[in-house]
């Protein structure tokens, strides 16, 4: 006899939960890898805004390996709707970076604002891209 618990715990639900676990595992590994990259950078710090050259190279090399791998494995755990949302959010981020960067530069050339700050632009682009992705995930 089939009860509601059996319907709820069917093979599809088990597969969905396994997918979800795999997604979170990948996300946690990506976060750990990012922490590792940050630690390499912190180890080589000699002062505010200064890094020993070897640590600067090691940080960039670690990022160049970790970032594509994290994107690749995260994409593997996403379904097509989630991949589409990520693509839309990335396009939005691209427009923010291009439009924001050029506008800031032109306004700075006109003496209206301070010169562009790369870190501020990268942070704003990253945050707005993530915000757009979360909005799309919530169906907005």
């Amino acid at each position, binding site marked *: 006899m089939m009860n509601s618990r059996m*319907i*709820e715990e*069917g*093979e*599809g*639900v*088990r*597969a*969905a*939960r396994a*997918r979800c676990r795999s997604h979170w595992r990948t996300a946690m590994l990506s976060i750990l890898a990012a922490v590792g990259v940050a630690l390499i950078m912190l180890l080589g710090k000699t002062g505010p805004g200064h890094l020993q050259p070897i640590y600067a190279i090691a940080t960039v090399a670690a990022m160049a390996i970790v970032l594509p791998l994290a994107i690749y494995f995260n994409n593997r755990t996403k*379904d*097509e*709707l*989630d991949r*589409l949302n990520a693509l839309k959010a990335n396009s939005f981020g691209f427009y923010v970076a291009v439009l924001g960067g050029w506008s800031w530069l032109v306004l700075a050339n006109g003496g209206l604002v301070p010169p562009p700050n790369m870190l501020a632009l990268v942070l704003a682009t990253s945050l707005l891209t993530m915000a757009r992705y979360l909005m799309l*995930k919530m*169906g907005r």
Partner: protein
Amino acid sequence: MKNRLRVLRAERGWSQLELGGRIGVSRQAVNAIETGKHDPSLPLAFRIARLFDLRIEEVFDDEFKDD
């Protein structure tokens, strides 16, 4: 795109999570397809049709049929 996914799912007593697990997508994706907010890719549409033992056009409405 209109489709009969919600009806077919209900006939089997499956939740959106259950159906999602069987076709390899999230519950949110099933909901988006059912409400017509997301048109599935051709491979996913085939997977759905195969799961219900139907042809694609028996699950999804061809809205450009008369064009």
